[in-house]
Each structure stands twice: as C-alpha cells, then as structure tokens.
C-alpha cells in the first residue's frame, strides 16, 4: 500500500485552514485545556511549603494528560460527520484519494494542534509552579520521570483518541453524539492516567512502561480499525 504524501498533505492543509476560520474549534481547543489546568494550579497554590514532602507521592502533572486524550477526540469526532453534514465529503470521495490517506490527513490535522496545545498548557503549568508556588513545591512536583512521562504519553494518548474519534465519526450522523461517544471511549485512558496521578496505581517505571506499550499497541490497531469502519457508500449516501 502506497500512501501519497501529497494527498495526505492536501487534506491536512485543508483541515487546518478550516480550523483557523472556525471560531467554535478554536474556542474548544483553548477552553477545554484551560479547564484542565485550573485544578492542578489551585491545588499547587493551596499547598504550603511544608507539604512539599508529601507531594512526592502525588503526580498532579498527570492530570494534564486528559488534554491530549480529550481535545483530539473532539476534533476527530467532528472530522467525518461534520463534512458529511456540510455535503463536502462526496466531492472528496470521488477523487482518487484512498481512505487511509483521508484518515491520516485528518488525523494529523487533529494531532498537531492537540499536541501543541497540550505541551503548551503543560509548559504553562510548570512555569506557573516554578515562578509562583511556595518554595520547595516546584522541585517536589516537577520531577524528571514525570516530565518524561508527560512528553511521551501526550502523543500516544492523542493518537488513540484520534482513531477512536474517527471511527465513531465514520458511523454517526450527528456531530454532538460523535463528540460525546468518542470522549466516552477515550475516558478509560484518562482514568488510568488519573489513577496514576492519584497514586492509586503506583507510578513506577514498569507500570508506566506497560501502560505506554499498551497505548502503543492500541495506536497501531487504531488506524486499521478506523479504516475498516470507513465505508465510502455509507458516508456518501446518508448525507441527507
């Protein structure tokens, strides 16, 4: 199977052009992450310097992994239903574009902004902690392994959410249902990161590695699942 970079690029660029001019999407990409930023920031500011020793076992940073899990899920969920509703899918599907190319183009267009936003919010959080938190909090909270986990898990979670979102999107008729469904299906990964953050599951290296490997496998399966669910005829004929 050969994938045309040019066709993938065409879809990718078109999606980004559309996002840029769609107020709703920009709003969703900014508001959702900021909501997830509030909780950890509040937590940090209510901590006194003496509490920093207890922080070693809390992994507040991992809360922020909800952002790469949920933002792309919402974007990807919209990608096929949205076009179907606008009636723009039929012309695209009548070109030589392959379904993998269409899926990858759309996935990249959800991936890039989601990862950029996630890293940005994460950086913002670290900056806030370093600058404004009580002394002692920052080194306790921002630890090497967590930084690495954050950097590695962000794209992995985003990819899984995107495939789920696109698979849902290929089969639903209503964008809102699609968004809700795909967020729902992405929740298990968010739940695991939350459990890690709360210390219920010990955030030790083997667990993290196992979780990472699991997500990686899901990511590999994801494209196959999403393309298998993709059905040209269904996407064209249920447009009305």
């Amino acid at each position, binding site marked *: 199977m050969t994938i*045309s970079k*040019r*066709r993938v*690029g*065409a*879809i990718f*660029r*078109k999606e980004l*052009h*559309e996002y840029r*001019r*769609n107020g709703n999407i920009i709003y969703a990409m900014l508001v959702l992450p900021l909501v997830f930023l509030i909780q950890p920031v509040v937590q940090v500011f209510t901590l006194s310097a003496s509490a920093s020793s207890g922080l070693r076992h809390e992994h507040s940073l991992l809360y922020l992994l909800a952002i790469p899990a949920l933002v792309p899920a919402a974007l990807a969920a919209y990608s096929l239903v949205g076009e179907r509703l*606008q*009636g*723009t*899918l*039929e*012309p*695209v*599907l*009548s*070109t*030589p*574009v*392959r379904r993998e190319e269409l899926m990858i183009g759309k996935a990249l267009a959800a991936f890039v902004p989601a990862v950029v936003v996630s890293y940005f919010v994460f950086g913002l959080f670290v900056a806030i902690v370093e600058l404004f938190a009580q002394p002692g909090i920052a080194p306790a909270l921002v630890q090497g392994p967590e930084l690495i986990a954050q950097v590695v898990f962000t794209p992995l979670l985003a990819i899984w959410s995107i495939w789920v979102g696109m698979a849902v999107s290929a089969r639903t008729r209503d964008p809102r249902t699609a968004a809700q469904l795909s967020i729902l299906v992405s929740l298990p990964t968010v739940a695991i990161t939350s459990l890690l953050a709360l210390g219920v599951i010990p955030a030790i290296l083997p667990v993290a590695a196992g979780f990472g490997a699991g997500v990686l496998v899901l990511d590999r399966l994801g494209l196959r699942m999403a393309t298998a669910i993709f059905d*040209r*005829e269904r996407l*064209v*004929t249920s447009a009305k």
Partner: protein
Amino acid sequence: MALELEMSLAKPATASNEVRPADAALSVHGLTKRFGERVAYEDVSFDVGCGEIFGFLGPNGAGKTSTVRTLGTLIAPTSGSATVAGVPLTPENGETIRHRVAIMPETPGLYLRLSVEENLSCFADLYEVDDPADRIEHALRAVGLADRAKDACGSLSKGLRQCTALARALLSDPELLFLDEPTSGLDPAAARDVHDLIRELRRRGTTIFLTTHRLAEAEQLCDRVAILNRTLRTIGPPEELRDRMFAHTLVVRVRRPLSSPGPTFSSLPSVDAWQEDACGSYLLTVSDPDVAAPATTRALVAAGADVMSISESQHSLEDVYLEFVDTDKEVERS
C-alpha cells in the same frame, strides 16, 4: 468524402443509435441498485460513445444521482456490470476509475470557509495534477471566475458556487465528466454560460454524462438522451425519439372548408389519415412530410382551395418525456 469525415468528427455518435463497444466511454449492462428494499434504478443498460454528450433525463427520484454515484465508484451496484472510461467497474478498480472521471455533484459541496483557490488547490493535490497553479488558473478562466479566486466560497452566489464546482471537476482534465443537474437553480443567463462551457468541453473531446430534468437543455445540448424512471424507458437522439413516438402531422389551413376533403386527402402519397379540428384546419398524419407536403399543396390548388398555410406541427422532447413519465404515474396509481 472529406466533408463527411469532418461531420463525423464534429458529431461523433449522433449518426447512429449504436455505439461500438470499442469506442465506448461508458458501457452499462443490466445495472441495478437497491437500498434495502427500495429500488433506486433497475436493469439499466446503455453505451455512451467517446466525445458524446449523453443526456440522462428523469423526474426526481428516478435514480439519476444513484446512477452517477455508481458509475463514479462512490456506491456499489447491487447487480449488473459496467465499463467506465475503459475500466471494468469493480471494487479494486475504484481508484483507477476515479483518476479518469470527474463528477460535479448535485450540490457543489465546497468548503465555504475556504477561498475558491484554496478549494481548488486541495482538489488539484488530491488528483495529483502536474503544475497545479496553472491548472487552477486555467479551470477558473474556463468558468469565468478568475477574478474571484481569493473570495471565500461562502460569499459566492449559488450560480458562482456551481461554477466553482464545475472548475473543480475540470482540474484533472477528465476523460469522462459526470454533471449531475449542473444548471438546477441557476438563472437563465448563468445556465447559458454553463451550456456554452459544456459545448466547449465537447469540442475538446471530453465525454459528458449530463443528468437533468430540463428538457430544453437536453434537447439543445445532447447528442443522445435516455429517459430513466427507475428503469430505462427509451434512448436515442432527441429528434429520433420524437419521430419514433409521434407520427408527423401536417396542419393545413384554408380560407373556406373544402367541399370534399375525403377524396382530396386520402388519395395523397404518404398521408395515412386525416381529420378536421375545431378551428376548421385539417390535420394530416403523414409518414414522410417531404413527400406529403408538396403533394398536398398541389392537390389543394387543383381542388381550387385558397391555401393559407401548410405547416408541420412540432413535438418536443418534452412531449416524449411526459409520455413516459405520465404513463408511469398512472401505473403507480393503479
């Protein structure tokens, strides 16, 4: 001889009703599409020659769009076979076929937030055309939209959106172009521009499959038409369909009624029957107007009648169409 050759180049498939399979841009045999229980179209067979403008007529819900989508590999037929632009219609050949054909769908389906140029640029890349900037400019000039390239599609009128969709379909320079009701909802001037463009495309050798329910459009543009109402009802050049369905009628108007119309008309060559209408004109059913008209004129003069006019009454494609579509309605009701 030279003249003949020129004529056959100018109007490739008009001369005969049959298209030799080797020349066919499209060849369809017993094609059927059902959506569950519902029949979109059934047992449709026809050929379209290369360079032909083929009209596909039918009322709403006749199955025109479903046929276009099937031949454009967007939906799979339930049964039957077809060859599209020389390639057999099979699931594996979808991509090859989509490279050779282009569809202008019923609704333009443009990205309204994007400019005309951005829309076309996306599709030029999807078709992987060489020198996209040049192709885009060319396509926009062809539809007269060169000066609107930077405008958002959402700001265009319905006619201009239709033209943009047409430009998009031209980007890949397709061998076979499907136009699904390209002038529906356009004002007469915009529709005429589209007609001119279709003629221009034909002159350059593009085969055009045009669905429409505008009969005048089909009559003016198409080399041959087919009338579809779930099944294919008839097919042929518009003028031939008229002749096949309706006998020629001569309308004879004289100043005073003839004293003995019976003997005058019934002995004439090529006149099969006659009757007098409410206005005192005589209607002659004739098999060949070229023979009947001069003979009738001579006979009337010999009979001492004052002839006001002799004319052939024209049936339009609309009459042909209504004949088929109205019969269908009656069938449905019964």
